[in-house]
């Protein structure tokens, strides 16, 4: 879709809903010229997880605008569809994308559950799917068409275990949210701790959106750990850290790249001080391509700094676009899949990305500590 058409759509939407239906269908029909390649992006634009989906769309629009402005022989259009993080809608969208023969690749979904359900459709149809966040241990194993641009806990867990062992922490409490991802956090980390000769003093899962962590915290303290390793996103993380501070617990906290968001510090305030975590995206990195993304993001978000997930989405879209370009002219679903599988050392804002033989992203990780209300990279 051209920029003019996009603003026109926006303007029309405010007029009346009926006019909007007609306008968007008309534009969608007319904007597709012969030299346009289509991609699908399924993501939660409404519902409980809409904040993530809205960020992904913003990141994708930045990547797409750059690609289409670069004077390539063809233009790319991304069709965004709202899944509400609902498996019903996710599979509907997957069928819809598969039906559209012009779509050669699909991005998304956000949650593993929806990504896995949709993947069953993509597997059957042979349409490559690249998720920016799906973290389920079995996601990429579904078929040769599933890729993901996220460091798995099989990679991050041992990395963090080694880091904590080097710091001299032997006895570690592990908590994580009760999701497929949380399961993989505890699994990936605990095995590595034991392999390093350490011990897991305590491990428990909590349900997402828990308001009161005090009973969990007192259980952790009863186990007298040297440090706490946590698998949470920023909303739960901020709650946990604030209640930890309120109870006066001084045990060091380590976390994963999923908690890496400016909102963590915003919500937790000084309770976030001293938290150690890994990341592969540093908005303060002076490298020009990272600063370019941060500037574009700020321009579209009222000056806010992008977090880990938008950066992953931005890179996922760019990896997909690079694969489409590699598969051109006349990209097909199969050619795009093969091009994706060959992705090696892709220079993204989340570090260099290579897809291994299992279609898992291998990423460089950076150690970060919260100091003075900001994420600061640390050497050890």
């Amino acid at each position, binding site marked *: 879709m051209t920029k003019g058409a996009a603003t026109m759509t926006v303007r029309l*939407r405010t007029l009346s*809903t009926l006019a*909007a*239906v007609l306008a*968007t*269908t008309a534009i*969608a029909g007319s904007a597709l010229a012969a030299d346009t390649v289509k991609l699908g992006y399924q993501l939660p*634009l*409404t*519902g409980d997880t809409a904040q993530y989906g809205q960020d992904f769309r913003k990141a994708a629009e930045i990547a797409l605008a750059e690609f289409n402005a670069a004077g390539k022989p063809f233009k790319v259009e991304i069709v*965004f*569809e*709202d899944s*509400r*993080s609902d*498996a*019903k*809608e996710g*599979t*509907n969208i997957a*069928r*819809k994308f*598969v*039906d559209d023969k012009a779509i050669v690749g699909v991005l998304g979904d956000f*949650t*593993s*559950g929806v990504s*896995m*359900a949709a*993947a*069953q*459709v993509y597997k059957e*149809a042979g349409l490559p799917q690249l998720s920016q966040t799906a973290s*389920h*241990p*079995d996601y990429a194993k*579904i078929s040769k068409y599933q890729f993901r641009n996220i460091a798995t806990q099989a990679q991050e867990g041992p990395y963090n275990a080694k880091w904590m062992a080097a710091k001299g922490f032997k006895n570690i409490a592990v908590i994580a949210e*009760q*999701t*497929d*991802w*949380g*399961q993989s956090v505890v699994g990936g980390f605990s095995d590595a701790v034991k392999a390093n000769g350490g011990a897991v003093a305590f491990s428990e*899962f909590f*349900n997402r959106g828990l308001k009161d962590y005090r009973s969990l915290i007192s259980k952790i303290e009863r186990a007298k750990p040297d440090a706490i390793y946590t698998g949470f996103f920023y909303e739960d993380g901020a709650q946990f850290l604030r209640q930890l501070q309120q109870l006066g617990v001084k045990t060091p906290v380590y976390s994963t790249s999923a908690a890496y968001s400016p909102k963590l510090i915003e919500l937790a305030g000084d309770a976030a001080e001293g938290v150690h975590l890994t990341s592969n995206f540093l908005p303060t990195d002076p490298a020009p391509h990272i600063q370019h993304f941060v500037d574009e993001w700020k321009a579209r978000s009222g000056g806010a700094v992008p977090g880990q997930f938008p950066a992953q989405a931005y890179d996922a879209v760019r990896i997909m676009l690079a694969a489409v370009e590699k598969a051109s002219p006349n990209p097909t679903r199969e050619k795009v899949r093969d091009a994706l599988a060959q992705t090696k050392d892709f220079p993204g804002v989340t570090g260099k990305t290579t897809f291994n033989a299992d279609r898992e992203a291998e990423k460089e990780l950076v150690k970060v500590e919260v100091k003075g209300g900001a994420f600061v990279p640390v050497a050890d």
Partner: protein
Amino acid sequence: MNAFEGTLSKESGGRRWLVPALLALLVFGALPALLAGFDRGYFYQIANLALIFVLLSASMHLVTGVAGLLHLGHAAFYGVGAYTAALLTSKLGLGFTVTLPLSGVVAALLAFLVALPTMRLVSIYFAVATLAIGQMLYLVMLNWVDFTKGPNGIIVTKGFELFGVALSGRLASYYTVAVVVVLCVVAIGRLSHSYYGNALRSIREDDQCADAMGVRTVRLKMEVFTLSAFFAGVAGALWAHMTGYISPGDFKFSESILILAMVVVGGLGSLPGAIIGALLLILLPEGLRALGDFRNVMVGLVMFLSILLLPKGLLGEVSALRLVRRQLGGAWRSTGKGEGIGWR
């Protein structure tokens, strides 16, 4: 009423079967023909999903519409059915032919067990009890990681089949779902439009009065709760084998509310209403995709307006009963003297 009895006797011949015949023709003839004509996986998917929710909505209609018990945990029994099918497939390698009835039976058994202590509750207390049951079952699916694989969900490797013969094509899948759903809905229709259904309605209108008249209210409530769970379990098996992957998120509280909304928007106590409500709330959000972020606002608006302007639902109970009585009233055939029996 006299004028109505007149029409009943006149139409008690061949025309009684007109509407069911037309509906059957639509579901088994026109719709699949249209689907095959378009040959779009998306349309098949939506048709199957809509049918599954028709079954869920119809099964909830039995408890909430006919017996008047506000059920806030229906999705959990849908989930129990889906998990039964998925676990039987992944652990024991059983096929759809076996998992389909077993899913219903397991969901019904579980419903029977939780019904034992709760069915003496009335009104809002019953609603809160079902809410708690729904949440408990959801949390079991989520947290009993060793058995249900918890949040990791289960990949269901087998699709639809009948005694080992795979029903894998798009059209075959549609017919599988359609046949199961239609059979179940007909059964629910027979249950709710019968003396049995009338006894349930009497509980809804005044349970103490019904008790005094010799209706065994607690036993009836348990039966209808169990039956409803059976059909929800069957719907769960359909969903599990259709999508090929299930996780607890598919069966959370918001799904119960969605099913409840279908029953209420369509018309409490009206089976055609429950069906129309399910179709509306599945098809409308898909149809409005072109509206982008506004589509959920529109769906909400349609629901709000339909409750505001049609508080009895799109096809309320009275009109639905008249329709059914005229078309399906097998037990109320005219005596030939211009008078029907029953329903007065």
